[in-house]
């Protein structure tokens, strides 16, 4: 009864408020313009995300084994991601620059930077313009996440794959610009406005840094401290430990039909920037065994990823062309030649030239993982053969791989080249039944 009285009172009283308003005149309205945008100073906050279990399933199992299985990730209590806005955190000395030994003042400058949002129009149509703020995101607590393949969503009768800890993943953005607009589908710079999203990212510097990644054996009989692979102090930079700068990135997202099914297509039209990656420390069962320096990584235009499903399970094609100038594995003193290096690595669709003479090498097109035009996508399924649950991965591969110089202990062992690759089936079951 009371419920109806509340409702009645609200209905009769709320509209009266509207009658107290005065209409706005045309003259007053004419002073309102859309010339300005909005600026937001993002507050310093701790933002937490927690869950106790994540499960993924594929209800029709594997080819020949129609029993379903579940990938279960649990014990994620207090997996917290947090702390926007680097302002106070910089003052506390808790930034990537501090961690990698670079002067923070030269990286972040002084003062804050707001998030600015505008809507504008240029020759290609209307767009949302976002000037990015300085901000920091990091994972505060992500320890011993348990990963297994099981019979059901609760993780029962599971086969353990291991434990994963990621206790210090940092992302720091230091300004930059993003333009978002309907996808330029006709390729002529005209917006068709019929679906698809287009992102252009220019002069956007950022750090990605991970303090520790620990992959631990799930067997309780293994001695503590002798059961883990640690990949520590990983970060992306510009070659001089400054933030990586996306100078000119152009990406799009579309959904549509091709090759007889519907796909989600992510396309990197362009990605310009000097990208380097360092891994400061590797440990195996508590023993250090070296570090890695990788770069410069060059991404060629028109890379793409197609994603869809089959009846149940993931279909995928990744198509890209990359050059990597150096992949150093350093196991001692680099200046004393205590390293192995793969110099000038090429991943592409096809090769021409004289194999023994790298100066004649020429690469073109994209290396493909999965080949959807020929009905051979890369696939991921979860299933069981009745006795063992497993992840089943198939990675068809098509293209060419070349390394101009392999250096072992600082000594050059010459070039390596694989071309004309067309691996139609490359199956991996984890764990093996």
């Amino acid at each position, binding site marked *: 009864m*009371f419920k109806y009285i*509340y409702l009645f*009172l609200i209905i009769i*009283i709320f509209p*009266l*408020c509207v009658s*107290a308003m005065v209409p706005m005149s045309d003259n007053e309205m004419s002073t309102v313009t859309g010339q300005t*945008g*909005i*600026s*937001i*100073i*993002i*507050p*310093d*906050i*701790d*933002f*937490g*995300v*927690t*869950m*106790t*279990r*994540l*499960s*993924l399933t594929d*209800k029709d199992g594997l080819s020949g084994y129609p029993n379903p299985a579940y990938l279960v990730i*649990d014990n994620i209590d207090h997996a*917290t991601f*947090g702390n926007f*806005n680097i*302002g*106070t955190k910089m003052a506390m000395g808790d930034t990537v620059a501090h961690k990698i030994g670079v002067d923070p003042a030269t990286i972040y400058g002084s*003062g*804050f*930077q*707001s998030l600015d949002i505008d809507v504008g129009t240029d020759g290609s149509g209307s767009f949302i313009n976002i000037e990015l703020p300085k901000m920091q995101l990091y994972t505060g607590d992500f320890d011993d996440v348990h990963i297994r393949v099981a019979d059901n969503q609760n993780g029962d009768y599971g086969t353990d794959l291991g434990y994963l800890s990621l206790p210090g993943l940092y992302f720091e953005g230091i300004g930059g610009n993003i333009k978002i607009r309907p996808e330029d*589908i006709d390729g002529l710079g005209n917006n*068709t406005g*019929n*679906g*698809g999203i287009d992102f252009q990212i220019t002069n956007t510097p950022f750090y990605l840094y991970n303090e520790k990644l620990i992959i631990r054996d799930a067997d309780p009989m293994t001695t503590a401290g002798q059961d883990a692979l640690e990949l520590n102090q990983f970060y992306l930079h510009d070659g001089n430990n400054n933030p990586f700068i996306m100078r000119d990135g152009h990406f799009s997202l*579309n*959904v*549509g*039909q*091709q090759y007889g*099914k*519907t*796909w*989600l*297509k992510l396309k990197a039209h362009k990605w310009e920037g000097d990208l380097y990656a360092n891994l400061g420390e590797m440990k195996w069962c508590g023993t250090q065994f070296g570090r890695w320096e990788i770069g410069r990584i060059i991404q060629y235009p028109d890379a793409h990823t197609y*994603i*869809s*499903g089959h*009846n*149940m*399970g993931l279909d995928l094609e990744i198509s890209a062309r990359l050059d990597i100038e150096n992949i150093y594995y350093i196991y001692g003193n680099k200046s004393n030649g205590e390293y192995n290096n793969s110099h000038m690595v090429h991943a592409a669709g096809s090769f021409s030239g004289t194999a023994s003479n790298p100066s004649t090498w020429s690469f073109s097109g994209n290396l493909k993982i999965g080949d959807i035009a020929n009905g051979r996508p890369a696939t991921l399924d*979860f299933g069981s053969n009745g006795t063992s649950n497993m992840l089943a991965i198939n990675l068809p591969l098509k293209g060419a791989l070349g390394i101009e110089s392999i250096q072992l202990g600082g000594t050059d062992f010459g070039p390596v080249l694989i071309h004309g690759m067309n691996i139609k089936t490359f199956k991996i079951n984890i764990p093996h039944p």
Partner: protein
Amino acid sequence: MKKNFAIVIFICILPVAAFAMDAIDDIEMDNVTGSTGIDIFLAGTLEIQASGHRLKYFDYDGLSAQAGTGGYLALDSPHDPPQDSTLSLKLVNAKFSIDVGTKNSVFDSPNADIIPFDTSFIRVELPVFTANLTFNDFQFQMEDNNEANANTMCIIQLTDLAFAIEHVYSPMYIYTH
């Protein structure tokens, strides 16, 4: 029940109080500054819930710019009948402050140094809160432009998913440029 009734009556009567006010003229308005603000205290618990079981993104002209070749990216319940997922936003004893002002001196808050002088702004102090998501199974799938011929990538289940603003160290400022 009586307590809830009293709260509702109070909420309903508040707008009526506006009728007792006199209109403010331009001269009086000139004297209004941003030196005061509004604090909203929520004593007790406010809970907002939203439920649903289907989320779809449609691309009309697909990958080839031709009508009829588009498709849907869909999150849908695999159950028959469909089972809803529910987002519950809960505020407990929350304080939410709003001020409007014009910057005419250097602020104590270093975050606000970048606001230009003589610029009006809104200052918001956010409350801490928790949002829980009861997430029933969702299948992640692609569908053609007729929402048919679904290809399912996987079925996802998230248990006890929650988002929270745990601490707020500084206010948010909003202004035009």
